[in-house]
């Protein structure tokens, strides 16, 4: 079992109302110094078996045809290694 993460973000030139709303709220919360916020989706897929090149290629295809709408979104696929600093 391995975890593959697909991140889907709106293309940079596409309006991101959600990210904007978050960014505009920051100063009110006392946070300065964040010049842009973009909000996207994160998919965590638990894959049975080894995540070899063939498996990755298939997931890439899945992301392209289903998880993202490439008219407005970009995506990245990565195999998850260890965790970053985790929140509780």
């Amino acid at each position: 079992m391995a975890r593959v993460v697909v991140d889907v973000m709106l293309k940079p030139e596409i309006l991101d109302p959600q990210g904007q709303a978050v960014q505009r709220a920051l100063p009110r919360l006392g946070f300065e110094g964040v010049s842009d916020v973009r909000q996207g989706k994160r998919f965590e897929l638990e894959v049975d078996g080894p995540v070899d090149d063939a498996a990755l290629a298939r997931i890439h295809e899945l992301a392209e045809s289903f998880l993202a709408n490439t008219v407005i979104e970009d995506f990245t696929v990565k195999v998850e290694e260890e965790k970053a600093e985790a929140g509780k």
Partner: protein
Amino acid sequence: MTARIGVVTFPGSLDDRDTQRAIRLAGAEPVALWHKDKDLKQVDAVVLCGGFSYGDYLRAGAIARFSPVMETLIEQAKAGMPVLGICNGFQILTEAHLLPGAMLGNNHLHFICRDQKLRVENAETSWTTDYEAGQEIHIPLKNMDGRYVADERTLDMLEAEGRVAFRYLDFNPNGSLRDIAGITNEAGNVVGLMPHPEHATEPLIGTGRTDGLPFFTSILKKLVNA
């Protein structure tokens, strides 16, 4: 003298004018409150109405919860002022931790608008005394993020303390745990629910029933008799 009940308008609030109408129909005086003002204009109670404050971006109610008006409101609600949160208002109250638990997207992933049957489980809160405990009512429901969740311990506590104020009957429209449609805080002054009583206050309009009016007459009686 009648009671003055505030209705907060956030950017994206939708049911502020309807809620004011419902308050008027019940015989109380509606007072418009603005999200950027900390001043509650000395109202006797506040309704946080439905809508999509800040577009419901991030999470429903998450941004509105940090607005200036909420600072005062949180303080006063803790001191006992009656507050009713309807739909987006309920979401704001959970985000503000005035009510436990959280609201998530409907389990079927769609917005849902329907005439919903409910049971009034607690007829002793500030907003429900004009109902009978166990009374079955129909109230319009319309939301995208109506799934009430909380951990088991919180749910058990709510049940044990009689703080589940309303429960969905016949059909759970959003996957809320234990069919919970609305809850109250311990003191019974803060109540939140997903369905919209303000849309059930006039014959002919909406579903044509007036099952929601007692919310507003309950609070009026409480405030006037206080």
